[in-house]
């Protein structure tokens, strides 16, 4: 999925506030998918970005040239918009379809299903190795999680 999608998702945990927890990326499967640059569209997406989660994801994926936050006058800053365009829309993590299988309502797990977009691009491609992203509270950085 696009990093923009990953950024907009969260594990909504009932009763624990409206924002839920961002999904931490554990998988490192990354593809770059060229997408036509549309500055107006990118500019409109900037207000929706959850920057902390984005920077963490970019860090996990070892992306470079990721803006640290919205800069003043970003709507007209082509360099900024192009960088955000690349990060949000062209970087793809994992397969195109991701599932949130709730084997327990309290433990949302995101795993992949057979990807229809393998390298060859034909439908019904190979079975992807399941990759698991578990949701962890964004704030907590306990030693237990570091090991994951």
């Amino acid at each position, binding site marked *: 999925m696009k990093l923009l999608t990953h950024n907009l*998702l*969260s594990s909504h945990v009932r*009763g624990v506030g409206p*924002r839920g927890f961002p999904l931490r990326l554990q998988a490192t499967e990354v593809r770059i998918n060229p*997408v036509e640059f549309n500055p*107006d569209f990118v500019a409109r997406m900037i207000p929706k970005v959850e920057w902390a989660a984005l920077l963490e994801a970019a860090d996990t994926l070892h992306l470079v040239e990721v803006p640290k936050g919205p800069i003043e006058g970003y709507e007209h800053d082509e360099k900024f918009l192009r960088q955000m365009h690349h990060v949000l829309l062209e970087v793809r993590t994992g397969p195109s379809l*991701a599932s949130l299988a709730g084997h327990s309502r309290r433990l949302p797990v995101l795993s992949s*299903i057979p990807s229809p977009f393998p390298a060859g691009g034909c439908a019904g491609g190979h079975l992807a190795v399941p990759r698991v992203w578990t949701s962890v509270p964004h704030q907590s950085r306990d030693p237990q999680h570091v090991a994951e």
Partner: protein
Amino acid sequence: SYYYSGWRPAAGARFFCTAGRGLEPFLMREVRARLAATQVEYISGKVFFTTCSDLNMLKKLKSAERLFLLIKKQFPLNVSSVSKGKIFNEMQRLVNDDPESWLSAISIWKNLLELDAKEDKLSQRDANPLKRKVEENDIINPKKLKTKQMQELQESRECQLEKQTDEATVEQGDFLTNREKSQEAFQNDAVKAVAAPNQKDLTFRVSCRCSGFVAKTFTAQEVGRVIGIALMKQFGWKADLRNPNLEIFIHLNDIYSVVGIPVFRVPLASRAYIKTAGLRSTIAWAMASLAEIKAGAFVLDPMCGLGTILLEAAKEWPDVYYVGADVSDSQLLGACDNLKAAGLQDKIELLKVSVIELPLPSESVDIIISDIPFGKKFKLGKDIKNILQEMERVLCVGGTIVLLLSEDHHRRLQDCERGGIPWNSKGSHTDEPGIEKCLNPGEKTDLSDTVSSSAETSGQGDLDKMPPFGSLVPVDRYRVSLGRTGAFICRYRKSPSSAANVAAGLRFPVEFCFIP
């Protein structure tokens, strides 16, 4: 060569579209907006309008079934006359009273279809071999086709959906290869129009549809024959059932007699960019048009199936962030295929998630559009409630929801609305099927106890004034036909009044959970 600048009728030409029942208001609005149409009127399943638009714009109509150039619209045939012969005379007068109107309509038709010679990359020489090949490969017996076609048309007794006419047309369309069904089909029409140097050499075919009292007196075949003979006598044209230059469409019913020329071979409702349709494309587009989609919006279809709604929306409103979700692998793979076929895989993201457990923060989605599945799998009551609750949660304040609801779902929601029972109440009182529980005063007291506690906390007063599903306020609804069944397109908006409630999580039982 598809994007040429076509001929436009200076003073405007008069057209009509057939439309699925219930979609007429959408179509009227669309022709005004898209084609700057004037003299727009709707009469029993057809929308008539005048426009100066060229073929490229006309082809973009999304809520119509088929488009026709109008030759004639007049009062219905008087079938109370004693003699059939007299009625046949009336039919002939459709042709003979005012032959000029036929000729001028045909002239407009030819002009509309004529290619701009300078920009035409497809030469006539190239197009004709294609046409000849198709004819060689065609093994369908024209006599059989005529009978089958006429039978199908006769079977329609009432003013129905275009489906049947489409089927008849599609039979004819089956002559063509898939390739022709797309852009080449349009150019083929153009080539045929130009290839007929003068009107005397035109070949034609008459398609008839009779309903109401007319249908009781005549078969479509009889009418077709009478009109066909009148045309041959009046204009010297020849009939060609297999591959005519010109198609004439006649619809006779109790309200009007309408004659027109279909502008496109393939119905507008049949989209070149949709590989496998789930929901009917016209209805999908109509739903999207109600959702007030603006550039930069986040639009979600949490039960997207094959993605038809998202495809229609993304084609029309491209600068928008679209996400589709479904729990079915096969549907999602079909949706993937559809996105690829339409070239929209960069515009629409697909997720395998459940609508009752959306991995989205509260109030993060601007617009939700969805076709709520019908059928036994979806029980009335509890499922709908959970679905709407989750949709309400993720929707921004001021956001819009457009749903397609079966008659059953809709009736259920209406009854609960009338009873003033909010859907976010705790407990299972609204879970049981049947209307009685909703309106039972005893039950109501229980519920109002639960609800008023949260209402008090949020500072709200009167229970009766509370919108039915928490903060979702019904805006409007439209009954549409899906062929054999009907459904409702329902629009809701999330009002700010209960936003505080939702954000504070008062409506949800507090489940504390944690991740190891």
